[in-house]
């Protein structure tokens, strides 16, 4: 007789999970599983008990959930090793692992003290924002595979995928921008200091010797700003000129040059004091605006392609021997060995008599598919059950799933097709400024040539769109910040504008409209007794099949649930499980497995999976597992009704059509059994009809559609997990607010337009001085900062008030 082990609310001292049936008690500590206990011992033996004292009481990563027992031997392969190491000289090696599990300061403590567990580690450094750990180690004492395994053992399973192999060193850092701002700020402050005497001096003016000295110092200070800090503006302007597109930076560069050269002339000729202070201030403000707009989310990855999902290497069978090779090197007719839970990297043919493949990754279908010997298995399927051999039919890059990435949608840069609002505005602005300057010069030319040059350069200076150029960066920067607070993370701030123009929304079903883990479950059959529920609960707890987990969650309503020890547990992939619980024989799984007739032949039309159960050979009935829709969907669809077209694209069959009909109005708007390529083509059709499409999806099968849409949004219940390449990563809890987010983006565009109007107003006031050739450096030094600060204040208040009114989280 097995005994009841635990029925208390004890939390694991390592990870904080409730301790269930197989909980372990030791001294005054409780652990939910052996994994957690092992980690605890490892840490306390190495003198790292502080791990549990720093931030959270139970910072550990649950060892129960890391089901996939990854193997790392392939890392020692020379073809892989040298490509992923950052540094190697025979004595020391350095590797940077991405470990998405890093979540608190205890993690930093543990990972930076890893040398106490493994003496071969020389140094380790955590980058919290990027969720990376850089480890320097002695390659003669420890293999890379052992190091990775050690990290996995303490819960920080490194994220190693095919994408790691082609390391393009993308330097996202803002370092050069910071230095440019630093230099511009330094010059701005000091030039202002040397210009103030002139502005403040009384009727006598400043001593001539000082005027000359200050002028020279100002030139010296302004030179690095002109040559280095402002260099990005010239580059963009030049690109614009070459492509024959009027961009904002052309007007900016003209203004900057007019200011600098006129000041240079005035100072050297002794004619005046120049506008060096306004010049440095202008560059400083513009660069700060650029920095503000550049906000990025380091820990999120927006550019994942299939390589991030596929394993780094596979086991290739050569005769009796197996050898691990990088997945990119797989050739046609190679025989590869795939183990339970591993992904099949290339289209191949099954060489075993039977295997179960889970295609949820590719199609969204959650039930594993049975494949027979000789059957073609598509890349992206996950093997479920015993290890199996496959013969490769197509290389990785030409396989079914990866073919998507060869579509032209992935080659063109989708941003180029859309001109931003400030670009459209500057198409009129820059030519207008140049014409006004020319007209003013022509007007003065007959009477006073010096006034003509004066007026021409003054117009360029005053019209230099400082405030104008700050409107969009600050508004969009604020929008990115505010939406980020609402768990809607944009790849870059320009996407706000694309969101504002959306008029069609396309939804994926599985994982997007439905929960990926939760389900609606009902039991149909004889009423189960309390004891039977306890038996079944214990039995399903041992299986890792998604359906078992769902049934388990359904049967376990509170933490005091009774669990029994389970013995003779046998799982038959794709069919079901039989086991002994507390002296009773429990069998569950498909109808045939349990020995039951399918109760109702019309079952196929019902949108549910069934788990049949028998206790001691007596059939009890079945659990009906239906995917659960996320909360707030009906109000979301209510809010977009009439304003936007909504469509459904699902890889699943049409079992749920009737349930979804009220949301999508007509059956025409719902497409089922869509392949990844179908989804991509559907988006193309919508775009050809002139619709601006927002696609919401979650899986690799949506990647093409996400990429092809105007705005691709990938939904995730936990932003640490994998999301396909997209413009936006959104937390699932934000889905009901989608309409509010679109409304907010529209409001942000209004804010930009109003602040354009404000800055144009300031420009007109300044122009009035400029065309009469009476623009003094003082007026310039006053108008420029006032207009910039007005615009910054207005955009800050405007976006935040708009967010508050719409009920979004805003700056406090």
């Amino acid at each position, binding site marked *: 007789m097995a005994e009841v082990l635990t029925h208390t609310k004890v939390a694991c001292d390592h990870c904080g999970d409730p301790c269930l049936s197989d909980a372990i008690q030791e*001294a*005054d500590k409780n652990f939910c599983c052996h994994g957690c206990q092992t980690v605890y011992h490892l840490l306390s033996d190495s*003198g*790292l*008990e*502080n791990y549990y*004292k*720093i931030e959270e009481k139970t910072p550990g990563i649950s060892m129960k959930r890391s089901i996939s027992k990854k193997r790392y031997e392939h890392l020692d392969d020379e073809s892989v090793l040298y490509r992923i190491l950052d540094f190697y000289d025979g004595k020391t090696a350095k590797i940077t692992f991405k470990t998405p599990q890093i979540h608190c*300061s205890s993690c*930093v*403590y543990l990972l*930076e*003290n890893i040398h106490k567990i493994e003496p071969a580690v020389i140094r380790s*450094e*955590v*980058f*919290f*924002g*990027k969720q990376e750990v850089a480890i320097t180690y002695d390659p003669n004492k420890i293999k890379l595979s052992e190091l990775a395994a050690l990290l996995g053992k303490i819960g920080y399973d490194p994220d190693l995928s095919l994408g790691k192999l082609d390391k393009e060193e993308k330097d996202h*850092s803002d*370092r050069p921008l*910071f*230095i440019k701002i*630093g*230099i511009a700020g*330094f010059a701005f*402050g*000091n030039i202002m*200091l040397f210009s103030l005497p002139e502005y403040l001096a009384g009727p006598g003016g400043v*001593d001539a010797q*000082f005027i000359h*000295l200050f002028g020279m*110092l100002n030139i010296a200070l302004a030179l690095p700003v002109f040559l280095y800090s402002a260099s990005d503006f010239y580059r963009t302007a030049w690109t614009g000129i070459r492509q024959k597109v009027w961009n904002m930076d052309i007007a900016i560069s003209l203004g900057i040059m007019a200011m600098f050269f006129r000041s240079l002339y005035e100072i050297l000729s002794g004619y005046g004091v120049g506008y060096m202070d306004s010049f440095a201030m202008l560059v400083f403000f513009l660069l700060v605006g650029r920095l503000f707009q550049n906000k990025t989310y380091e820990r999120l990855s927006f550019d994942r392609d299939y390589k991030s999902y596929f394993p780094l290497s596979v086991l290739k069978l050569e005769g009796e021997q197996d050898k691990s090779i990088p997945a990119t090197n797989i050739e046609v007719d190679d025989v590869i060995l795939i183990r339970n839970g591993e992904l099949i990297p290339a289209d191949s043919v099954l060489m075993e008599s039977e295997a179960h493949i889970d295609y949820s990754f590719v199609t969204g279908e959650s039930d594993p598919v049975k494949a027979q010997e000789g059957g073609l298995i598509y890349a992206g399927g996950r093997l479920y059950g015993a290890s199996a051999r496959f013969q490769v039919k197509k290389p990785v890059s030409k396989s079914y799933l990866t073919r998507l990435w060869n579509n032209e949608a992935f080659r063109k840069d989708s941003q180029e097709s859309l001109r931003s609002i400030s670009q459209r505005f500057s198409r009129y602005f820059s030519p207008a400024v140049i014409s006004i300057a020319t007209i003013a010069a022509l007007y003065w030319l007959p009477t006073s040539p010096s006034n003509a040059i004066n007026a021409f350069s003054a117009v360029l200076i005053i019209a230099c769109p400082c405030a104008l150029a700050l409107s969009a960066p600050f508004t969009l920067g604020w929008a990115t910040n505010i939406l980020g607070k609402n768990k809607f993370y944009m790849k870059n701030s320009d996407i706000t504008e694309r969101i504002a123009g959306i008029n069609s929304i396309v939804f994926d079903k599985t994982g997007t409209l439905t929960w990926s883990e939760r389900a609606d479950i009902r039991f149909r059959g004889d009423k189960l007794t309390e004891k039977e529920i306890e038996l079944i609960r214990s039995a399903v707890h041992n299986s890792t099949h998604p359906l078992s987990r769902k049934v388990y969650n359904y049967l376990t309503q509170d933490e005091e649930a009774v669990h029994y020890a389970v013995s003779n547990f046998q799982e038959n992939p794709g069919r079901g499980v039989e086991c002994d619980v507390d002296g009773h024989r429990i069998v569950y799984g498909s109808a045939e497995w349990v020995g039951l007739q399918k109760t109702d032949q019309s079952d196929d039309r019902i949108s549910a999976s069934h788990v049949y159960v028998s206790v001691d050979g007596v059939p009890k009935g079945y659990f009906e597992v239906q995917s659960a829709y996320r909360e707030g969907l009906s109000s979301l669809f209510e809010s977009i009704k009439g304003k936007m077209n909504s469509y459904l694209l699902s890889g699943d069959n049409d079992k749920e059509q009737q349930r979804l009909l009220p949301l999508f109005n007509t059956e025409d708007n719902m497409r089922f059994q869509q392949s990844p390529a179908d989804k991509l083509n559907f988006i193309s059709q919508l775009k050809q009809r002139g619709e601006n499409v927002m696609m919401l999806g979650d899986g690799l099968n949506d990647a093409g559609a996400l990429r092809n849409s105007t705005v691709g949004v990938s939904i995730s219940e936990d932003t640490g997990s994998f999301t396909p390449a997209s413009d936006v990563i959104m937390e699932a809890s934000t889905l009901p607010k989608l309409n509010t987010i679109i409304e907010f983006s529209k409001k942000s565009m209004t804010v930009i337009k109003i602040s354009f109007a404000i800055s144009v107003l300031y420009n007109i006031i300044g122009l009035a001085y400029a065309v009469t050739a009476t623009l003094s450096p003082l007026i310039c030094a006053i108008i420029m900062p006032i207009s910039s600060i007005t615009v910054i204040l207005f955009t800050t208040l405007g976006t935040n008030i708009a967010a508050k009114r719409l009920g979004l989280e805003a700056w406090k």
Partner: protein
Amino acid sequence: MEVMYLLIAASLILATSFVIAFIWAIRSGQYDDKYTPSVRILFDDNENDSSDDDQKKDNNNK
């Protein structure tokens, strides 16, 4: 008024040294990760050892 030259030179040298210090700080990567160092500084090896000893004593007492 000659003292002005001295003051200007002093102020410029001071300001320039700040800019150089700033550029050095950026280049050496001090602004790349703004969170981890704030946590790291709180870990103290010695304190860790002594608290370990305390822990062992505690266990013995029990």
